């Protein structure tokens, strides 16, 4: 019994590509889950959506210029966030509409560029990720960015948390709010870039929301929310990667579905469930 269970784990790991897949999924699972806590609370969940779609023209341009694709993707993602802010501040169109216009415009541009330019960017891999085909080089690149972003976020989590909770107060006590704002955007773009190869630009959105939402359901302290989110995310990444091998289905979608299942479980036992909430109201 225990032997068969063990075999379920060791068998996939006999393959080198599975080892790489597992490692990279754990790394990006960690950094995405840390971010998800802030995005969910700040109301920026769809910022992840926008930035990740917007990286497409960056990939194409980077290929043309001959710089690393990640740098192009990073710049395009950041450009999307900044352009959204600029157009929102200077027109009467609502923020969500501006965001939709900007990222869909960039995505469309990227699509046109990729069909016109001969690149080695495989469109379907960008869209859906290709975790099983990842190279050691990719693992090192994604891993470095992921670890760096994770460390910065964890070390400065209190400042970022205060910024999400009450930016006005953060500014009043002398924190550099613009710095925090753009820092968060830059780190978000970096995180998305690091996850592109493994998860693709659509599923990364889910990894940037679900763990934080699960943590939110289960605790009322921010630090605990972080810990829960990270555990949930890493657990899903490990089981998802191993199960996808045995079931012979796509890896990243399976991870996302497992994360969603865990979220649904959390909804039913969570503290933030409405029914529970009424009980805890006191005066």
């Amino acid at each position, binding site marked *: 019994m225990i032997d068969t269970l063990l075999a379920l784990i060791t068998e996939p790991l006999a393959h080198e590509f599975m080892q790489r897949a597992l490692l990279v999924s754990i790394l990006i699972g960690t950094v995405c889950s840390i971010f998800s806590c802030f995005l969910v*609370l700040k*109301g920026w969940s769809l910022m992840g959506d926008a930035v990740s779609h917007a990286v497409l023209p960056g990939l194409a341009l980077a290929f043309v210029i001959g710089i690393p694709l990640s740098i192009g993707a990073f710049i395009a993602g950041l450009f999307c966030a900044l352009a959204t802010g600029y157009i929102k*501040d*200077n027109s*009467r169109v609502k923020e969500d509409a501006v965001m939709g216009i900007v990222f869909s415009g960039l995505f469309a541009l990227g699509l046109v560029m990729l069909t016109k330019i001969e690149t080695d960017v495989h469109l379907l891999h960008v869209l859906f990720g290709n975790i099983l085909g990842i190279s050691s080089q990719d693992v090192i690149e994604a891993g470095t960015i992921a670890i760096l972003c994770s460390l910065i976020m964890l*070390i400065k989590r*209190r*400042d970022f*948390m*205060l910024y*999400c*909770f*009450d930016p*006005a*107060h*953060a*500014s*009043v*006590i*002398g*924190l550099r709010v613009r710095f925090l704002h753009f820092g968060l955007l830059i780190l978000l773009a970096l995180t998305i870039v690091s996850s592109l190869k493994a998860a693709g630009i659509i599923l990364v959105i889910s990894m940037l929301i679900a763990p934080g939402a699960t943590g*939110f359901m289960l*605790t*009322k*302290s*921010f630090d*605990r*929310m972080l810990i829960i989110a990270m555990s949930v995310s890493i657990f899903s990444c490990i089981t998802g990667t191993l199960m996808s091998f045995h079931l012979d289905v796509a890896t990243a979608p399976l991870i996302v579905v497992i994360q969603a299942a865990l979220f649904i479980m959390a909804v039913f036992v969570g503290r*933030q469930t409405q029914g529970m*909430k009424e009980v*805890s*109201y*006191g*005066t």
Partner: protein
Amino acid sequence: MSNPIVTIKNLSVTYPNGHHALEDVSVNLKSGSICGLVGVNGAGKSTLFKAMMGFVKPTAGNVSIDGMSVRNALKKNLVSYVPQTEEVDWDFPVLVEDVVMMGRYGHMGFLRRPSKTDHDAVAQALERVNMSEYKKRQIGELSGGQRKRIFVARALAQGGNIILLDEPFTGVDIKTEDSLIDLFQSLVAEGRLILVATHNLGSVPSFCDEVILINKTLLAYGSVETTFTQDNLSKAFGGMLRHHQLIGADLHDDEDARGVTVLTDDERPLVLYGEEGGKKIVRTPKRKKADKT
């Protein structure tokens, strides 16, 4: 005579959409007083606060605090701000004590790890607003008045000398309002400057020393006795107030010519009583100050 610590000079603010929110406002505020900032909704009260904290850039004029630019004053934690509570996300997973601790971040090191001093300051601040027993609650699990008090505690923990409160009495019961006013008065007695934005006229004379009346521009500024008059209030509120006046014979059975004027928008009414149909203020007696030694 105390010297002014907030100097607002010819301040104008125009929002990016072209809306002029403030035009040419100048006031000097000194420490040791409570100043009411009174005006209708949309008069620019919040905008004035935002300019004082550097959230919006003045299109003309400037604000200086203790002779410093706003930015430097904020770095020194001179200013505390209590926001309009509607703007806060009450489901945020933070406990009451976490929120108050946020007031201390400006005093902490790079990692924002609280020291003993910080813990003490938080405990004291919670004590002063009578919320110590709620410190482990999630902030959403508090009543309206308690929520206000937590944000006041955060301002206290921060230890700023200038405290800005944006509409602190909206949605608060009379008892909490009174205890907040007592707290403000004891804070002022310690030499702080408190600026309270409100459209709640009734309580202004009972706790403010000075008032600023604004409606886009500065209408009047000065001590409550000389400034908080019916004429000025009509200027500030235009037709927005319900206005009841009972003069001489309507009110008295004798020869007394004095009258009562009741001005109210929605909350506490302002009662003016005296000559000229109650156009001059007879000041409601000020609440007892915190015992000064």
